[in-house]
């Protein structure tokens, strides 16, 4: 039936010019033709399509047959495959490029990962061919195509491990490789010394597409280095993207150092922010500095401190993204820090807001990120950044952190750093005015204090209190009372009033309280009467079971043990200071 209709309409149109074909002719051809293919009559359709007499018709209407054809090719329906492939190829040769483009792009839109990968694989070459036929006015069509392809590829699951990349089950790697082959002729067409406005548009399109790939998938996959995976399609893809950027005249150095360079005047029609998406630039910096891609084209003359400053801006931005990106953030920051000599970053760098913001963000990762491995990574790079500051900068940074971190563990960690710096300063030849001379005492006063006086919750502030006590003990042992290099001995009477005595009071109060709690708990356990606790805790919709008496007792013992620990250090300090003072 459909076949007859198709033959009829073709015959009707055969001798006529194409501008005389009516809408009805078009519709009948389309519906009948599609039905024939769907019903499996591809042999007959092929002969109609190939017939010399029908070429004008084919040129005018043939592209409408693309949908069912592509479906057959995607499904790899063996029976009809050769004929459909032949029809498909003939249409590509004969029909008008603009219309073919529309037809092909429509078929690119798929939903499930398998079909997406297959349609990209099938359609990229035809699309390339069609676009090249468009001649010099192809820029916007190229843009549309790349945009669709990248959107589709973005739907594919990403490989995370080396095995996943090798297996490439969802064909993301294959798509990336094919994408590079796809853009190659368009990149080669761009002759940088003879740019007219169309070629300029083409450059802009290519540039925007590169930027898009830098953001996805490149920011979200962890590239494997050559030792782990010798042949990595993703690493090759990343390298090719960088090469493409260079080929279209974009300097990698200007892109990477963008945050600190004055914006140049842009030709083209895109806004600054859209044209240089910050995440893509951060991704680029990561590829260049951590994976050393395109290293042979990157100049080796830049100052490591300048690199660090630029990469801080990128790092700052990356912190705004999801925590999954943190490994990349950490790697970029760490790599930049490592190139700088220890103790060389001056205090005025801290005045750049970015430095402090990055540190604050690191503290957040260190303290509240649910993943243990990321917390460890955060701490490692935090300490590395401290090591790079010079003495004055360290001093300022420690003060800043003590003031703003709001977390006992972080404060304790900083106090330990302060102790190390004092220890260094006391060694011969290392003397400085920050951790030994005139500035040390104000810092010590901030450290050797209790946040809430005698009522400070010693368990909550344990880390900080213990490190403060350790520092004080260290000072009274290390700094002889006859030398008093740190000034601790002249300050001691004040410290006794503001720190040691309130701590003593606090310890006594806490211990008394917990001992009473322990006593009550053990009494009620003996009574076996299940006391209804006044508090209940629910997570989701489930109420958590109350702590058993046994657990309560264990917790209380643990608290008392902690107080003993604090007290033992305090007593030791009191012994040492009594002895010295009585000398």
């Amino acid at each position, binding site marked *: 039936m459909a076949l007859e209709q198709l033959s009829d309409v073709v015959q009707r149109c055969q001798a006529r010019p194409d501008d005389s074909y009516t809408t009805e002719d078009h519709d009948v051809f389309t519906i009948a033709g599609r039905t024939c293919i769907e019903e499996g009559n591809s042999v007959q359709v092929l002969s109609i399509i190939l017939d010399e007499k029908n070429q004008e018709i084919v040129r005018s209407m043939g592209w409408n047959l693309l949908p069912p054809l592509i479906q057959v090719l995607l499904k790899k329906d063996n029976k009809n495959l050769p004929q459909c492939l032949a029809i498909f190829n003939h249409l590509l040769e004969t029909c008008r490029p603009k219309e073919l483009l529309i037809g092909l792009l429509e078929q690119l839109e798929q939903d499930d990962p398998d079909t997406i990968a297959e349609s990209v694989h099938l359609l990229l070459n035809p699309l390339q061919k069609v676009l090249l036929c468009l001649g010099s006015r192809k820029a916007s069509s190229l843009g549309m195509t790349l945009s669709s392809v990248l959107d589709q590829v973005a739907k594919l699951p990403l490989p995370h491990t080396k095995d996943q990349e090798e297996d490439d089950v969802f064909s993301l790697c294959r798509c990336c490789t094919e994408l590079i082959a796809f853009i190659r002729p368009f990149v080669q067409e761009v002759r940088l010394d003879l740019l007219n406005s169309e070629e300029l548009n083409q450059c802009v399109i290519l540039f925007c597409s590169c930027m898009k790939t830098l953001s996805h998938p490149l920011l979200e996959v962890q590239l494997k280095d050559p030792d782990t995976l010798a042949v990595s399609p993703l690493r090759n893809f990343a390298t090719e993207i960088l090469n493409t950027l260079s080929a279209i005249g974009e300097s990698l150095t200007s892109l990477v150092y963008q945050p600190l360079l004055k914006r140049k005047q842009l030709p083209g029609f895109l806004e600054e922010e859209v044209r240089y998406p910050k995440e893509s630039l951060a991704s680029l910096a990561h590829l260049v500095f951590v994976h050393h891609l395109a290293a042979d084209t990157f100049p*080796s003359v830049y100052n490591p401190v*300048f690199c660090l400053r630029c990469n801080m801006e990128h790092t700052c931005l990356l912190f705004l993204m999801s925590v999954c990106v943190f490994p990349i953030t950490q790697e970029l920051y760490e790599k930049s820090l490592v*190139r700088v000599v220890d103790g060389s970053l001056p205090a005025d760098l801290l005045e750049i807001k970015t430095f402090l913001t990055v540190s604050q963000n690191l503290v957040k990762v260190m303290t509240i990120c649910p993943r243990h491995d990321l917390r460890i990574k955060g701490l490692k790079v935090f300490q590395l950044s401290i090591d790079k500051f010079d003495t004055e900068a360290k001093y300022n940074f420690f003060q800043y952190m003590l003031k703003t971190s709001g977390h006992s563990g972080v404060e304790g960690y900083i106090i330990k750093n302060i102790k190390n710096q004092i220890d260094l300063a006391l060694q011969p030849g290392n003397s400085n005015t920050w951790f030994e001379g005139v500035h040390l005492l104000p810092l010590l006063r901030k450290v050797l204090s209790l946040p809430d006086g005698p009522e400070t919750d010693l368990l909550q502030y344990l880390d900080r209190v213990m490190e403060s006590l350790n520092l004080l003990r260290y000072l009274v042992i290390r700094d002889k009372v006859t030398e008093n290099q740190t000034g601790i001995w002249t300050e001691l009477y004040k410290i006794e009033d503001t720190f040691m005595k309130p701590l003593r009071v606090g310890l006594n109060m806490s211990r008394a309280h917990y001992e009473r709690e322990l006593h009550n708990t053990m009494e009620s356990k003996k009574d076996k009467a299940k006391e209804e606790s006044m508090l209940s805790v629910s997570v989701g919709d489930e109420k958590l079971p109350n702590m058993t008496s046994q657990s309560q007792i264990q917790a209380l013992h643990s608290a008392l043990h902690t107080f003993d620990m604090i007290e033992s250090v305090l007593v030791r300090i009191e012994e040492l200071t009594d002895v010295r003072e009585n000398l």
Partner: protein
Amino acid sequence: MAAVPTRDWSDEQLKSDDLPKKDIIKFIQDNAAHSFLNEHKLLGNIKNVAKTAKKEQLIIAYNQLFESKRFKGTEPVEEVTEQVKAVKIEEKPKEVKTEVVDEGPPKYTKSVLKKGDKTNFPKKGETVSCWYTGTLEDGTVFDTNIPTAARKKKQAKPLSFKVGLGRVIRGWDEALLTMSKGETARVEIESEWAYGKKGLPESKIPPNAKLIFEVELVAVD
């Protein structure tokens, strides 16, 4: 200087807080002989003298001036000559101070291979463009931006950056400020003004490496 200066301030006025040290110093400097000022350590910038001299000392000096009558112009000629000599010595240190660099001699050397126009020298903050080749002491080329037959010619551009702002290694910043447009120079940079003890492993620069660059300054902003 014929007239003898009058003693305007009484002891009480001198001791009073209303009379600043600077005024007393100025009076004594204006009116006392050079040797008197020297003995009482009242020579030099008034501010500095005010820092080091106590009020009591100034009152004593003031009184002694009128007692000894060692005013300006009461000295023999030799003392005047000494004054002139003394002044000369004082001026020299000031000049030396501005030229001495805290860190010692520059850690790079430059030999000109091709002269520039000797008029267009880059200033700090201006953008310079260069072709360059960097080698290690053993001759290994670790970096260049000069297009060879192997590289695609269309990609080659001179390196552009703002000079003197610490964006590049110090040897480059310092050397380029001494070059004029069109000049080609061989610049040897010691590691402290290059990549120091860290080196740049990914660029084949080992730790403590002395770097040798041949640089052509093509343009100055």
